[in-house]
């Protein structure tokens, strides 16, 4: 079959096609991030707002949250006392703002401690079979006790202080994190890149540090945010039943506990700390949800 090559002027272009979808909007870097991860943006923004509020509490038109003023007891919210005063005449607004400190310290403290201890136990038991059998049975035993009961029991053994609250809640949370990390480690161990590292002569400690640990961090960070939220609730619960932060320190649980007796006549004493607690927990959970979606590779393909 004889063939001829087309001369250059004989090129036929393909017909132009219209765009089916509108092109992507140009966004700033920050805008793009918020568009991609709206829950992280909202949750992160609100959490940082609460953190700033806790740090700069003295500058936010507060008075001494522990100052007693028996003459001005149980005033309703007004221009002078934004959230009213409690039965000892203390300014509820100031107490609620300062109370954020306790909630956040306990929340972050528990998240950091429980995540690190859980990570350590999980890594070890995921890698060493003998340890695994013993440690995981202990963890199972601890998990069979409701964590709040475990925390109450811990508090009953010690004196009331913020540190002890953190320790008590941490101990109750460690089994869950350890289980999570161990599960992740067991999957990661089977990954070809870990097998390749073993074949490349990498020693076990280095395999854990270089290959396992960095890849467990994402799920642990997500878990830590949820721990933070649940620790805030646990702290409030413990304080509310009088087994938590010493009553002298304004914490949301303490404020609610003190207002409990007057709940039917002066509901605002309980109402404001409750609202702040709910919004803080919601923000932290939003952040956690957003992080999970962003860090979980299975969700990464989400459009």
């Amino acid at each position, binding site marked *: 079959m004889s063939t001829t090559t087309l001369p250059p002027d004989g090129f036929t272009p393909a017909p132009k096609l219209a765009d089916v979808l509108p092109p992507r909007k140009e966004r700033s870097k920050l805008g793009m991030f918020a568009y991609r991860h709206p829950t992280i943006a909202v949750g992160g923004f609100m959490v940082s707002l609460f953190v700033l509020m806790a740090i700069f509490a003295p500058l936010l038109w507060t008075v001494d949250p522990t100052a007693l003023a028996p003459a001005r007891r149980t005033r309703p919210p007004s221009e002078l006392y934004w959230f009213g005063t409690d039965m000892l005449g203390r300014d509820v607004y100031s107490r609620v703002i300062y109370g954020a400190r306790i909630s956040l310290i306990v929340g972050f403290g528990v998240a950091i401690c429980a995540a690190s201890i859980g990570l350590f136990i999980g890594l070890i038991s995921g890698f060493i079979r003998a340890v695994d059998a013993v440690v995981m049975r202990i963890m199972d035993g601890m998990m069979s006790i409701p964590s709040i009961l475990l925390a109450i029991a811990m508090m009953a053994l010690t004196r009331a202080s913020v540190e002890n609250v953190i320790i008590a809640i941490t101990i109750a949370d460690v089994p869950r994190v350890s289980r999570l990390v161990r599960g992740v480690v067991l999957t990661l161990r089977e990954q070809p*890149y870990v*097998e390749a*590292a*073993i*074949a*490349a*002569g990498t020693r076990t400690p280095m395999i854990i540090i270089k*290959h396992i640990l960095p890849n467990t961090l994402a799920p642990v960070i997500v878990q830590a945010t949820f721990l933070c939220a649940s620790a805030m609730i646990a702290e409030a619960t413990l304080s509310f039943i009088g087994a938590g932060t010493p009553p002298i320190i304004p914490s949301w649980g303490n404020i609610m506990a003190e207002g409990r007796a007057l709940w039917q006549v002066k509901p605002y004493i309980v109402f404001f700390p409750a609202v702040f607690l709910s919004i803080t927990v919601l923000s932290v959970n939003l952040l956690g949800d957003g992080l999970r979606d962003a860090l979980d590779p299975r969700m990464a393909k989400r459009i």
Partner: protein
Amino acid sequence: MSNSQTPSSGRPLLEVKGLKKHFPIHGGILGGKTGNVYAVDGVSFSINRGETLSLVGESGCGKSTVGKAVLRLYPITDGEVLLDGRRVDNLPAGELRPLRKRMQVVFQDPFSSLNPRQKLRDIIAEPIVNFGMASGSELDDRVGDLLDKVRLPREAMYRYPHEFSGGQRQRIAIARALAPGSDLIICDEAVSALDVSVKAQIVNLLSDLQDELGLALLFISHDLAIVEHLTHRVAVMYLGKIVELADRKTLFSTPHHPYTRALLSAVPVPDPTVKRQRIILRGDVPSPINPPSGCRFHTRCPFVFDRCKVDEPQLRDVGMGRMSACHLDVVPDTVPEANRQAAVAA
């Protein structure tokens, strides 16, 4: 680069003798052992320096298990693995470690075989650092040279695996496998997950590297056409055993074992003018938990006779240096020969 002492000529680089790997099955309330998966059940072969031996077979035949057992990714049930005549299957971890630099691996999935949180430099340098072979700027040079070898730009060393395509990632995995100056690379389905055009790039790269560096390759694959392109010798596996072992030309031109013949005839030929008759095997591969008695292939073999069901054929020389595990000295040619003619014509 490799071990200082040169091996005596004639001794194979890798010898595997009677390798068995059984995985226990746990079940029941108490988690007791209820059976075994006979993944690899008595496999022997050897690989010389600079040679490619391919292990072919269908999924579940145990070919990948052989690779991982040779690498000592898990302990073996029975048998011997010898590297340069030295037994490595029973070495304690400390003595085994220095020998690991001589055997490296490239896995199938280019997405899970590289740690997503490491830069290329750290991935490729890992074995070099492990064996204390270089550090500092010398290490960077080494990594750069390895990237040259696998035809990736040197600047790539500062980037992460997710920035690369499947084919490029497989090049990275090859660079890592070359890094400690290995003598033997085990390619476990190393090109199976790649697209046709990229597969060709990687296959060519592997044969070039082999010629350049004198590498031995254990090429584990289910793709017979690829194997025919790059191998020197082939071992065909079925249900944990080698059924035929021969050099490339012998195996592909005159396959002996009925399973090899069926396998070859099943490969679709990319030529519409060829209409060939093929041996369609009946049924599925039996379970390796409960393999058939006698010859493991007898449940699907077109040439089965009574002896096959009770007496297990051993791998034996059936002429022309070919080893086959079939009771028949001459497998009937009636149908298979026609198949072969058609395949040859392709």
